[in-house]
């Protein structure tokens, strides 16, 4: 009986996945299947709901990249209304997306991927049988950039109420602070970052 290697679940990304590798008797790979055993059915259950609610609902497609889904939803709403995005709104969206971009890269690299790449060879393999987590070591490395992450978290916090469930950039949402206060605080904060 030929062997099967099963990787279940796939880890360090959002979502459920598994891989089945079928081997020949000599151990060579005969066939390999990647499966995503997950469906929630957003395609169906958003149908019939008020369009302006969608940017608040579709963020839950993925909590790692909610900003992308939020903005896609917001653009779909723009399309439905046929309106033109005011320059200020476009800038707010852009700024918000840049903040998300930084957060996502830091989270992916330091928390999800880098420990395997950077520490894996030395620690993970050497200690593969032990469940001793690499989390602290990896996060110590992450702390080296924590200040820049803190900066983007601060910015995202000013632009939206919840880091993982952005709400406000569609249909009349506004930064909690108000735009003028945001501008002042942003200028001050950028000055601080420059002087580090």
């Amino acid at each position, binding site marked *: 009986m030929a062997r099967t290697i099963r990787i279940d679940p796939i*880890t360090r990304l959002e979502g459920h996945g598994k891989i089945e590798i079928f081997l020949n008797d000599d151990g060579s790979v005969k066939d390999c299947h990647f499966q995503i055993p997950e469906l929630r*059915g957003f395609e169906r259950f958003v149908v019939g709901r008020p369009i302006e609610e969608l940017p608040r609902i579709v963020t839950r497609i*993925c909590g790692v990249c909610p900003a992308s889904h939020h903005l896609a939803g917001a653009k779909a709403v723009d399309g439905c209304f046929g309106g033109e995005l005011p320059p200020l709104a476009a800038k707010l969206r852009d700024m918000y997306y840049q903040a998300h971009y930084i957060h996502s890269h830091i989270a992916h690299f330091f928390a999800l991927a880098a420990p395997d790449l950077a520490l894996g060879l030395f620690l993970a393999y050497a200690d593969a049988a032990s469940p001793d987590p690499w989390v602290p070591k990896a996060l110590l490395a992450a702390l080296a950039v924590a200040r820049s992450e803190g900066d983007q978290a601060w910015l995202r916090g000013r632009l939206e109420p919840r880091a993982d469930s952005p709400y406000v950039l569609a249909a009349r949402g506004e930064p909690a602070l108000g735009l003028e206060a945001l501008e002042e605080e942003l200028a001050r904060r950028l000055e601080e970052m420059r002087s580090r």
Partner: protein
Amino acid sequence: MEKNKLQVALYWGAGCGGCDVAVLDTNEFILDLAAVADIRLWPIALDGKYKDVEAMADGELDLTIFNGAVRNSENEHVAKLLRRKSKLMVAFGSCAHLGGIPALANQATKEEIFERAYLKNPSIEEGNTTIPETMTRVGDGELTIPAFYKRVYKLNDVVDVDLYVPGCPPAPEQVKAVLKAVASGLLPLKGSVVGASERAVCDDCKRKKEEKKVKRFHRPWQIIQDPDRCLMEQGILCAGSATRSGCGVRCPNSNMPCRGCYGPLPNVVDQGAKLLSAVASIVDSKDPEEIARILDGIQDITGYAYRFGMAGSLLQRSIR
């Protein structure tokens, strides 16, 4: 594995990963957690596999933090597996607590969801359609995927749950508070909702509340709202009066109405019924026809009343 450390698993059922990111977003606090706990399973961040969990002794884990709802047989299977291996089971976030956004699917049938996703999705190539089967033969091997249930369940529909942490996602400061409580061993009574307040979102909302009399309900973009006044008084449907606080009132503070992710107030059975009762009490008319017209201004009332809690409601799902 250090014997004196807490043994912890974090897992997701039918969720989005936002709850896991909420834990990651406590940033350097995770170092404090890691100082007192070994994380044995955490798919978003660690390499634990199901077989590692199966190999554990029953009760070997001190704590499982479970986010996500129960949408398919894998979600249920892993929930039961972790329950057996774990002394304490925490339902973390709206989906595990009450079904969350995925439970909005309880208004559709499994067949309707499959049809939309696999047969009539605009991104599907013509003729290239596949309806997933739980078992498929490939060569001499078998591929299996979980069975998609007819409806979404909340976590405590399938396993015994010790504590509930509401929110979509739980606010980072609440995540810290809960993890600190667990680490200190000072746990509230079984069945408690933790990481949240006993008050309503309205009680913590700074907007001015004067007189609630509504002649017309507006969608948020239909009026220029007064940023200082209660949204509901302006005719913008807001679930703040029916929703437990603890979130920091972040949505109304950002000029967006509350949609209820922290779940019902203490001692309230059905959050949606509570919201509907609030709506009924503010309609400013005694004329049945006018009342009907005013209420017709609210589209998809079910989606507002049970945005995050369909699986935990009295209705639970549409029956067809």
